[in-house]
């Protein structure tokens, strides 16, 4: 147990934005975002109307609650208790309603921001706050951590306008499982980080699985893997020390994992617990203990819109940087968005 703990403690916690240098939004992007906030577009008028309508509804609900709170003065103790319960329920109901409305507003605002970004690039960009890369794609690699519960969020997808092919996808991901310990249900987080999907420039047939978990190297540590893949020992001793590669075709594995590519992986993913999967033309990278900024725009606050825009571009730029550092992608899809 101590051995595993010591292995885990060596893993570095990281921030996806540590990979990129500071940047400023382009003038065109800034202008487009400011137009949304100042209510020049039909979309923002619609949202403002919606917010106003909710505010009116909330005022009405508060008035009813205030009226109700006067009733106990006239009647019995039982009624006081009932009224108190109603007040508590109303309080939580309102809070839930407000959160729902705010989330809906922020989602719409994010959609607008992403549309502006998409309009200024050669790609179609999609964003979803509550979705992510599919669980089936995560589970392709049998080395991935146990994920009875799979909760993705902050999903960004870049689709090439010409080929209609997904170039890059990224999401925040939490996976966990629960178990019963005596009468108590306990939750174990198995992965909390960033999950990336990048189109790989080389064609390949067989899947390749890579993990940094060295304990899986031995036959005993490779539980549940069965005959799905064999361990492939590569030539680079440094790479072998950090990564474990599994696959069915050692030649294809070497075709993908060239000496140069291994060196780049080693350089970029040093001290990071990660899982890599080469599957159906894509490279999937799961970076454990990696985070992103989760900044959402606030109602009518211009600065927060700009910060949210900056944040989402930084997210894409970090993924782009990673893909470029591995020589997987050359074209910059954020080049027209920043100064």
């Amino acid at each position, binding site marked *: 147990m101590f051995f595993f703990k010591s292995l885990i403690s060596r893993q570095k916690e990281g921030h996806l934005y540590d990979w990129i240098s500071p940047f400023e939004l382009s003038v065109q992007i800034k202008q487009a975002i400011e137009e949304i906030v100042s209510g020049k577009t039909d979309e923002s008028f619609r949202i403002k109307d919606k917010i106003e309508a909710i505010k009116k509804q909330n005022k009405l609900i508060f008035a009813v609650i205030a009226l109700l709170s006067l009733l106990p003065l006239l009647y019995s103790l039982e009624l006081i208790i009932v009224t108190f319960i109603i007040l508590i329920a109303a309080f939580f109901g309102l809070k839930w309603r407000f959160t729902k409305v705010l989330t809906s507003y922020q989602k719409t605002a994010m959609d607008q921001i992403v549309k502006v970004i998409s309009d200024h690039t050669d790609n179609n960009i999609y964003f979803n706050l509550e979705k992510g890369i599919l669980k089936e794609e995560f589970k392709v690699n049998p080395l991935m951590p146990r994920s009875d519960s799979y909760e993705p969020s902050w999903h960004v997808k870049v689709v090439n306008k010409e080929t209609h092919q997904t170039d890059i996808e990224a999401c925040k991901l939490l996976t966990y499982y629960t178990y019963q310990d005596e009468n108590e249900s306990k939750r174990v987080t198995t992965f909390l980080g960033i999950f990336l999907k990048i189109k790989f420039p*080389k064609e390949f047939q067989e899947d390749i699985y890579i993990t940094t978990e060295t304990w899986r190297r031995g036959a005993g540590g490779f539980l549940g893997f069965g005959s799905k893949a064999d361990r492939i*020992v590569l*030539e680079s001793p440094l790479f072998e020390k950090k990564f474990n590669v599994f696959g069915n075709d050692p*030649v294809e594995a*070497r*075709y993908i994992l*060239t000496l140069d590519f291994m060196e780049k992986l080693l350089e970029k993913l040093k001290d990071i617990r990660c899982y890599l999967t080469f599957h159906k033309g894509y490279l999937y990278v799961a970076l454990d203990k990696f985070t992103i900024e989760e900044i959402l725009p606030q109602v009518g606050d211009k600065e927060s819109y700009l910060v949210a825009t900056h944040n989402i571009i930084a997210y894409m730029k970090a993924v782009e940087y990673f893909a470029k550092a591995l020589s997987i992608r050359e074209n910059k899809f954020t080049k027209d968005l920043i100064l």
Partner: protein
Amino acid sequence: MSYAIISLLLILAYVVFSYNHFIKKRNKLKEAYATMDVMLKKRYDLIPNLVKTVNQYMIHEKTLLEEITKLRQEAMVCSGKIREAKEDALSERLSTLIARFESYPELKASDNMLHLQRTLVKTEEYIGASRRNYNSTVRLYNTAIQVFPANMLASLFGFTKAGYFEALEEEKNNVELSFRKDE
């Protein structure tokens, strides 16, 4: 008496296990070589078409194209270290040829040429990968038959050390020299 039987059985089990282990390693080695051979043959098949296609455009690269054709013919009939040296030289010449495509815009505009170039680059990369795989298999096989006490059993059963697929410098130089003579 019973100790002697148990010891004998253990030794016998070790011999059987080691023998099977050597056989598995040797088969993997043969498989790795065969895979590499397939890739090299694929390259032999590509070259005539490539030379035919580029010949009309790359008039200034006549010598290079002749060298490629000659090396292909020689590599096909050679074996052992000489073949390895020829294959190495062929890879080198083909890389030079691919690099020189850049100087011929009309070549880059041809769909057929682009397809050929992509196939050639991919084949070259696969050759490199299969060669690395073969050398890695050789290393594992050689280690298996050279460590003590397995080395005694390996020599008893006739398992000998395998050679890596890498041309010796001397042989590489010979390839260079033979061209200089031809020129």
